Structure formats: C-alpha cells, structure tokens
C-alpha cells in the first residue's frame, strides 16, 4: 500500500520515460519504414537490425559542440528548444492512456492512467499546443538567419491556420461525448453497436476524423505539410542554426508531438483503450496498438506524398478544411439536438 502521490509520481516518471522511448522507437521505425518504402536496408549496423541506432544518434548529438550564430538573441536562442520540448511533454500530461486502475491493489483507490485528469483536458491540450508554437517561432527569430525566420513564420502561420480546423473537428467529438474531459470521451466509446461494431467516434464522426488527421499532420509539421523544415527551400527551417543538444530537443519534441497527436486521435476517435478480447486492465495494450497504427500511417504518408506549395496549403486550410469542419460541427450539433444523444 503506497500513498497516492507516490503512485502519481510513478505515473509521471513512467510517462516521461515512455515518451522518450517512444521517440527513440519512432526515429528508428521511421528510418526503417522509409527504407522499406524506398527499398533500402536502412540502419542495420548498430545493434541487432540497427535497433540501437537512435541511441547512437542521441549520444552523437550530445557530444557535438553547441554553436550559436552571430547576432543571435542569447537567451531566446537557448530558450526556444526548451519551450518546444517542455510543451511536447506537457501536452501528453492530460492524455489518458489506460482505464482507471488501482495498480493491482498497490494503492487504496483507483486512479486513471494519466498524469492529470483535468476536467477541461481538451482545452489544456490546446493551450499547450499553442504555447509549443513559441518554441518554433522563437527559434526562427532568435537564430537571426533568414531561413530560420521563414521557417518560423511558415510554421507559425500554418499551425494557427490548422489549429482552427483541428479544434472544430475535435469540438464535434466533444459535442457527441458531451464532456471536455478526455477520460469521459474515451469512456463514452466503450461497448459495441449491434454487438460487433465498437462504438468508436470514428464511425460517428468520419468527416471529423479525416479533418483531425489532416490538421494533426499540419500541426506537427509533418510531410506533406512540412514547410517549416522544407529542406529544398529552407535548408532545415527553424532549426537550421541549431546543433547538438538543442537540436536534439527539437527533434525529440517533433516526435513526441507526433505521439501525442496519435494518442489524442486514439482517445477521441478510436475508443482509446477500449477493445475486444483484452481485460480492461490491459486496455493500454490496445491503446499502444492504435497509436502504432496511426504513427505508421504518418510515416507512410511522409514517404509517399510529395510536398504541396505553401499557398496551396493555406488555401486548403482556410477555404476547404475550415468550412468543412464548421459544417461538420453544425451538423453534429443538430444531430445531437435531434437525437438527444
């Protein structure tokens, strides 16, 4: 019987570690999948099938020299990656990844498997995402180089533009679930229709799901929306000037953001940890499976689709996605009113 705050602390540590691991796995799998798609081998030297490659990268990055360009804003230049990383970690804090459990009787009453169960979790998610923007913007601005600046501007405007559709598609889910707390949303998806179709919101909100996925890609600056670091145009975008640990932080942040986005998508649309055959306390396995699928989808997209043009991105975001999302929300609300949940 261990006190509650220790359990919480444990969970926090677990999440932290898991995220780091997840990032590492992502790096590895991304390269592997890329190789697969491009019919290469990919990393295979370091460790069995090159599985230790990410660790090697990390070590390499840590031991590189930290460079700071002339005329860069000393404080902000260092602050930017911290903000990004912190935001990335914080975002996951409100994401539940498992059913409520008492950790096999270790603690006296059930806690939900997430760092903080805020009753406005979704809004918090938003807040954090909008803050994580600053990491990129500051990085771009403070490193005093035009490539970075452009990258920053691009990513900022792109994230703002797509945050709206993101939010609207998400709001429609909330309307259906009738709660702002992610745990409630997930629990609202337990059970099946007609015994075999799981009550996932993806079936109620197909349009919303598609919009959410697209916007998510844009939010995480992934291809085909990876303008902030469009190599051919802006060297490496906002982190052109970064090296060693700071760079690693951006790198980390990007992948953790992907994981978070995937997790959120899972919670919102794919029924979180609910799934057949497995007992509830093993729900987190389902969760991991779903996340994995979505992440694979991301990578797959990245190596399959070409990058659009920037104006196309904007036009699409404002003139197609946003109206569509708004329409979807309206229809959903009407439906909820009509059917009364």
């Amino acid at each position, binding site marked *: 019987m261990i006190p509650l705050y220790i359990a919480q602390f444990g969970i926090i540590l677990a999440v932290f570690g898991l995220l780091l691991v997840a990032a590492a796995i992502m790096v590895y799998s991304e390269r592997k999948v890329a190789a697969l798609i491009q019919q290469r081998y990919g990393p295979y030297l370091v460790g069995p099938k090159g599985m230790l490659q990410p660790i090697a990268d990390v070590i390499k990055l840590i031991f590189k020299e930290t460079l700071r360009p002339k005329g860069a804003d000393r404080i902000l230049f260092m602050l930017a990656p911290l903000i990004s990383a912190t935001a990335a970690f914080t975002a996951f804090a409100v994401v539940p990844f498992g059913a409520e459990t008492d950790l096999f009787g270790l603690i006296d009453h059930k806690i939900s498997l997430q760092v903080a169960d805020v009753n406005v979790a979704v809004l918090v998610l938003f807040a954090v995402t909008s*803050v994580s923007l600053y990491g990129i913007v500051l990085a771009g601005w403070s490193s005093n180089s035009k490539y970075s600046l452009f990258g920053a*501007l691009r990513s900022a405007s792109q994230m703002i533009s797509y945050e709206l559709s993101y939010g609207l598609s998400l709001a429609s889910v909330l309307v259906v679930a009738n709660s702002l707390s992610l745990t409630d949303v997930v629990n609202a998806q337990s059970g099946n229709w007609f015994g075999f179709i799981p009550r996932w919101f993806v079936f109620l909100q197909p349009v919303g799901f598609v919009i959410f996925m697209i916007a998510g890609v844009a939010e995480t600056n992934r291809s085909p929306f990876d303008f902030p670091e469009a190599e051919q145009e802006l060297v490496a975008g906002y982190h052109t000037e970064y090296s060693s640990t700071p760079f690693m932080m951006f790198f980390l942040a990007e992948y953790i953001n992907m994981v978070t986005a995937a997790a959120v998508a899972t919670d919102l649309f794919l029924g979180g940890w609910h799934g057949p055959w497995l007992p509830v306390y093993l729900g987190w396995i389902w969760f991991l499976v779903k996340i994995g699928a979505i992440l694979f989808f991301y990578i797959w997209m990245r190596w399959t689709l070409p990058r659009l043009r920037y104006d196309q991105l904007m036009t699409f975001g404002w003139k197609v996605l946003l109206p569509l999302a708004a329409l979807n929300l309206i229809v959903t609300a009407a439906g909820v009113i009509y059917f009364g949940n």
Partner: protein
Amino acid sequence: MGTELLLFYLFGGVAVAASLLVVLGRNPMHSVLLLIVSFAALAALYITLDSPFAAVIQIIIYAGAIMVLFLFVVMLLNAHKEDEDVAAGGPAMKKPLYMGAALAVVLAAELVWALLRAARAQDDLLIGGASPDAAAIGSVRGLGQLLFTDYAFAFEVTSILIIVAMVGAVVLAKREL
C-alpha cells in the same frame, strides 16, 4: 490557506515583475514574451480562483493567438530596438510623458482605494458565504449556459465585432487596395 497565499504571492509577483519588464524593456520581442509570461501567471491565478476555463482561455486566445499576432508584427517589421528620442517633440515631448507616468502611480493609489471600497460593498451581497462552491463557478457547462442565455445578445454583437475587425485589419494591412 497558507499554500494558496503562497501561490498567490508567487504568481502575482511573477505577473507584476513580468509586466514591469514588459513596460520598461526596450526590446519589443522581449516585451512580447514577458507579456506572455505574465499572462501565464495570471492564468495560474485564475486557476486558484476556481476558474480553469478562464485560465485556459487566457492561454489559448491571449498567448496562443493575440501574442502570436504581435510576434509576427515584431518579426516582420523586425523592430529589434525601439528608436531613441528622434521624436518630433524631442525632449519637449518627454516632460508630459513622465508626468503621465507619475500620474499612473496616483491612479494606482486611487484604484486601490476605489476597488477596496467596492470590495467592502461586495461583502454584503456574497452568495453562499465566504467561499461559494467552486463547481458552480468553474464548470464550463454553467458558463456556457450563462453565455448563451443571459449574454446571448452580447455574444452575437461580439461576433459582429470580430467580423468588422477582420475586415478592417485586412483592408488596413493590404498593400494596395
């Protein structure tokens, strides 16, 4: 009690310090960022005031939208440093401004006085004793109901205001009409 007071002084101090730096700093970029910090501190205060929604709004809209806008402008015009007193008025212009600053202190005093009096007046119309239940205030649902029933008209008017602002901003910022 103690912890709450502690939190108050912590975040309040951060807010004041950040705002002062915003006001006194010479680099607009820093000002913007510090302002975000002070917003964050205020958001924290809102949470201690059982208003999580307000806090989140504060972050999302202020930090997430408005400040980004400021950031953009600063970056676009890259006004690193504010230009020194090349002002038309020059030093002549300065005197009244310092006077204004002095007046600001006076204002602070007056505001404290007035607000405190208002607070004293407040005590008798307290609902449910010294600390009403947090849920009543904090719940987003209640807030939404209030917003869309009592304040529905104001809400609509706000939407119109936003549209007007959008159009105005576009028209103003467009290079050639």
